[in-house]
């Protein structure tokens, strides 16, 4: 591996930082969800990520790490974020395989596989006011940055920038998936909670790789 490769320690750090974001912003995420959903996103994500960090320990390979993360999320989150984030991490693990580090291309391939899993599980498309609206642009920015020769840290920072823009762009949208879709036009004017937690996911990645 080269110095730029992403280590297992950095991946665990990513999860640790994501846990910190969702627990510190638990009230904020729940407030967003109470406007257009069922007011449990903050509590669900905090409970899920706390369970993840309890289970992770010292993983030996990338696939073992993300299998633990995904399986723990699907059985501890409770809401739709469980199967969605669970699928995301499980697919990263399957894509990465039994390795102990990821180069930029392997990181991008893993995240892309996770994203495709989310899309296939939730059947959401861009513009439906979901986590897809933050994750899709983030991965496009990551790919573009890596393609122009940047290291994973720089690419992750670009991904975080794009995830924030994607999150902010959900505000005027009318929800077409999930509980928020029951509100129809009234869902416009609020940030999507899933896109907001996804922006934290990429903020955590950018900080872990920095």
């Amino acid at each position, binding site marked *: 591996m080269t110095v730029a490769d992403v280590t297992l320690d950095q991946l665990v750090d990513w999860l640790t930082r994501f846990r910190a974001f969702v627990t510190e912003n638990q009230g904020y995420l729940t407030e967003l969800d109470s406007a257009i959903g069922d007011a449990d996103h903050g509590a669900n994500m905090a409970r899920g990520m706390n369970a993840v960090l309890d289970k992770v320990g010292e993983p030996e390979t990338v696939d073992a790490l993300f299998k633990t993360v995904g*399986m723990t999320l699907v*059985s501890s*989150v*409770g809401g739709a974020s*469980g*199967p*969605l984030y*669970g699928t995301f991490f499980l697919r990263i693990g399957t894509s990465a395989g039994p390795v102990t580090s990821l180069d930029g291309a392997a990181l991008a391939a893993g995240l892309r596989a996770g994203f495709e899993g989310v899309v296939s599980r939730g059947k959401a498309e861009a513009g439906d006011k979901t986590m897809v609206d933050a994750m899709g642009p983030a991965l496009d920015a990551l790919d573009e940055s890596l393609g122009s020769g940047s290291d994973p840290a720089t690419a992750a920072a670009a991904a975080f920038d794009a995830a924030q823009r994607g999150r902010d762009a959900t505000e005027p949208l009318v929800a077409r998936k999930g509980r928020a879709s029951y509100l129809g036009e009234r869902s416009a004017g609020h940030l999507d909670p899933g896109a907001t937690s996804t922006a934290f996911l990429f903020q955590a990645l950018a900080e872990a790789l920095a």
Partner: protein
Amino acid sequence: MIGIVVVSHSRALADAAVALALEMVGGSPPPIAVAAGAGEGVTGTDAIAVAAAIDEVASPDGVLVFMDLGSAVLSASMALEFTSTDAEVRLSDAPFVEGVVAGIVLAAAGASLADAAREASSAMTAKNAQLETSPEPAAEASVVSNGAVDLTLLNPLGLHARPASMIVAAMGGLDAEVSITDTASPERTVSAKSLMGIMSLGAAGGHTIRLEASGPDAARAVDAIRVMAGDGFGELE
């Protein structure tokens, strides 16, 4: 007998739906497993628990899974990645309560996975039809065609869920196609094998239903319904 899995955010909701269905099952109920809540009193669903429930009731006859809403659907579809059974598993798109009732009653009557799944899926159509059905009685009497049998419903509630499930169960072992029409609303005819169809007739006490049957067991099928109707489906005081 097919197995039934009930996936809900709420254990109380799932248990109540199952209890409602079991009131309509006369004989042995099918294997039923509930996967509800996300542990420790948390409202939600757990894909691992759904997979365990599927494996618990799985047999070569297959498993039919009913889900309430939102994450229940996502967790059930994800559970298919974690099951160990080789049995065919179908996720029903039926509305929750109607689906659980239809699935359990039909499974108890020995329905195949395909038949139970199709019948449960038609539950919403049946409800739509029921709400749009004109309550006005037909003004003109229609002529009874050859082979049709008219029966008057003696029990006060008519063909509500319990009698409907008795009819479906009675049809279970017979090689016959029986249609039922409420002569008060003769524009709609349903199969005697369709729980939701029979219920959607809204045939009330005092109404006359018309049976038309074909197939090798046609006479036995009509007799079975005639006997049950004559006894007011066990609901006469």
